[in-house]
C-alpha cells in the first residue's frame, strides 16, 4: 500500500533527520515567514484603510483584491520571473533563482489575501467603532491603527491563511526559484521533484511533514489566540 509506504517514508525522514531535510524545512519556513511578514506590513494597513476611507473607486479596489486572492501561482511566478530576469526591468539586481525571488513571488500571492480578509473583518469593527472614534476626533490613520490592534485576534486567522497559501504554493517558487539544490529547494519543490523521479512514497512522506508543520504552526497560533482572547474578552 503506497499510503503506508508514505507514512513509513515520513517517519524515516523524521527519525533519521538528515541535514538535507532540515535545510529544506528551514528554508521553507524562512521564505514563507519573511514573505508573510512583509505581506502583513503591506496588506494589513491597506485592508484596514479600505475599510475606513471612503473614496471613489473603493468598491472597485475591494472587488479586485477579492479576485486577486485566487491568482494562479504560475501566473504570478511568470510575472515575477519576467521582471527579475536579466532581460527584464529589474534584471540588474540579479535576484532570479534566489530565495529573495521566492519571497517576492510569495509576497505577491499573499498580500491580496491579507488585504482582502483584513478589509472584511475590519469593516465590521469599524461599523461598531466609527462614531466613538469620530467623537474623540482621531484622524483616519489613527483609526486604522486602533482597528488593527483591536482586531488582532481575527487578524491572526487572516495571517495564517496567508501563511498557508505561501507555504503550500509550488508553481511560483518553482519558476522564480528554480528548485536549485541547497539554494532554493523548499518543501513543495522537493515534493514536485520526488514525484517527477517517480519516488511517490518519498514525495508523499515530504507532504506529510509539510502538513505536520502547517498543523503545528496553526496549533501554536490557536493556543496563543485562545489564551489572549480569554484575557481580553
Amino acid at each position, binding site marked *: 500500500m503506497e499510503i503506508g509506504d508514505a507514512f513509513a517514508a515520513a517517519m524515516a525522514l523524521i527519525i533519521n533527520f538528515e541535514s538535507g531535510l532540515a535545510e529544506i524545512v*528551514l528554508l521553507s519556513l524562512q521564505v514563507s515567514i519573511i514573505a508573510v511578514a512583509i505581506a502583513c506590513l503591506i496588506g494589513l494597513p491597506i485592508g484596514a484603510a479600505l475599510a475606513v476611507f471612503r473614496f471613489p473607486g473603493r468598491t472597485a479596489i475591494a472587488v479586485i483584491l477579492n479576485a486577486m486572492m485566487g491568482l494562479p501561482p504560475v501566473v504570478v511566478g511568470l510575472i515575477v520571473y519576467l521582471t527579475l530576469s536579466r532581460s527584464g526591468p529589474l534584471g540588474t539586481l540579479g535576484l532570479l533563482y534566489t530565495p529573495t525571488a521566492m519571497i517576492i513571488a510569495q509576497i505577491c500571492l499573499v498580500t491580496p489575501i491579507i488585504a482582502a480578509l483584513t478589509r472584511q473583518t475590519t469593516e465590521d469593527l469599524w461599523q461598531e467603532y466609527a462614531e466613538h472614534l469620530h467623537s474623540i476626533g482621531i484622524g483616519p490613520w489613527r483609526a486604522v491603527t486602533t482597528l488593527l490592534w483591536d482586531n488582532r485576534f481575527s487578524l491572526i486567522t487572516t495571517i495564517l491563511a496567508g501563511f498557508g497559501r505561501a507555504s503550500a504554493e509550488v508553481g511560483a517558487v518553482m519558476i522564480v526559484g528554480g528548485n536549485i539544490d541547497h539554494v532554493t529547494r523548499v518543501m513543495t519543490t522537493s515534493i514536485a521533484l520526488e514525484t*517527477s523521479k*517517480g519516488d511517490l512514497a518519498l514525495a508523499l512522506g515530504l507532504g506529510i511533514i509539510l502538513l505536520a508543520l502547517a498543523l503545528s504552526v496553526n496549533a501554536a497560533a490557536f493556543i496563543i489566540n485562545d*489564551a489572549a482572547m480569554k484575557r481580553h474578552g
Partner: protein
Amino acid sequence: MRLFPRDLVKFKRSLAIVIVSLLLSFTNAFATNGFIVVASTTSTVNSGLFKNILPIFTKTTGISVRVLGVGTGQAIKVAERGDADILFVHHKISEVEFVKNAFGVKRYDVMYNDFIVVGPQDDPADVQNAKNVVEAYEKVAAAKSIFVSRGDESGTHKKSLEFWRTIPVDLVDSSGKWYREAGSGMGATLNLTSSINGYTLADRSTWMAFQNKGSLVVLFEGDPSMRNQYGITMVNPDRHKHVKAPLASAFIRWVISNDGQAAINSFRISGKQTFFANAASYKKNQFKNTSPKLRN
C-alpha cells in the same frame, strides 16, 4: 490547555527569538564566495549526476554551482535571457544554433548516454523485435498503441520528433487519440506512461533513477541514432555583461578535463554507469569497452 499570562509572555518571547534567528540564519544562504548558474536538463539533475560531481569541483575551486533542472528548450530560453552563466543540455542542433546566434561562446561535447524506448511488458506493438528505432516507431503507429510524447520542447522531445518525421504519420490528427502529449518533464511523462501502459522515448539516466516503473520495461535500445549527446556552452558575456566568465570557464575547463570526465564516468546508478564522458580532449579509448549499449 491553559497558558497563564506570564507563560504566554515567555512563549511569545521565545517565539520571537526563534523567528529572529530564522531570519539571521537566512543571510548565510546568500553568503557564497562566488557561484554560477547552470541551465541544465532534468535528466542530469534527477539522475543525481550533479549532486555527485559538483562537490568535487566546488572543493577544488571554491566555486559553487547552482543547477537549474528544466527541459532543454526551456534551459535554452533561460540562457538566452541571460539568466544562467552556462548551458548544459542535450540537443546538439539547438546548441549549435544557440552559439551561431551569438547567445553562446563555444560548445564542447561533454558526455553521452542513450535514449531507450520503454513500454508495457506485454508489448502489444511488438516493439522489441524492431530492427531499428524507426521501425519501432512504425510498429507503435501501426498498432495505434498509446505513445506518450514529452511535448515540452525538451531534448528528448526534439529527438522523438526526429524519429516521427521519418515515417508517414499524421501526429496532429493522432494527437489525443493514441498519440498523447504530456507537456511535462521526463519524470512526469514516465509517471503518466506507467499509469496508462503506453510507450515513450526516455533518456536512460532518468529511467535508471526512476522508481515508479510499474509494468514498464525497456523494449528497444542500441540504435546508433539513439545516442544522446550532452554539450556545454558558456553564455556570451558580450551579450549579457553580468555573466561570470572567469568562473564559468573554470567550470567548463574542469568538466572537459580528465578530472571532470573521470568524475562523470565514475557516477553510478544502482551500480551501473549512466553517462559516458567523451570530451574531445579526453582519452576516448579509456571507456570504449565500458559502453556496451551502443551497437555500431
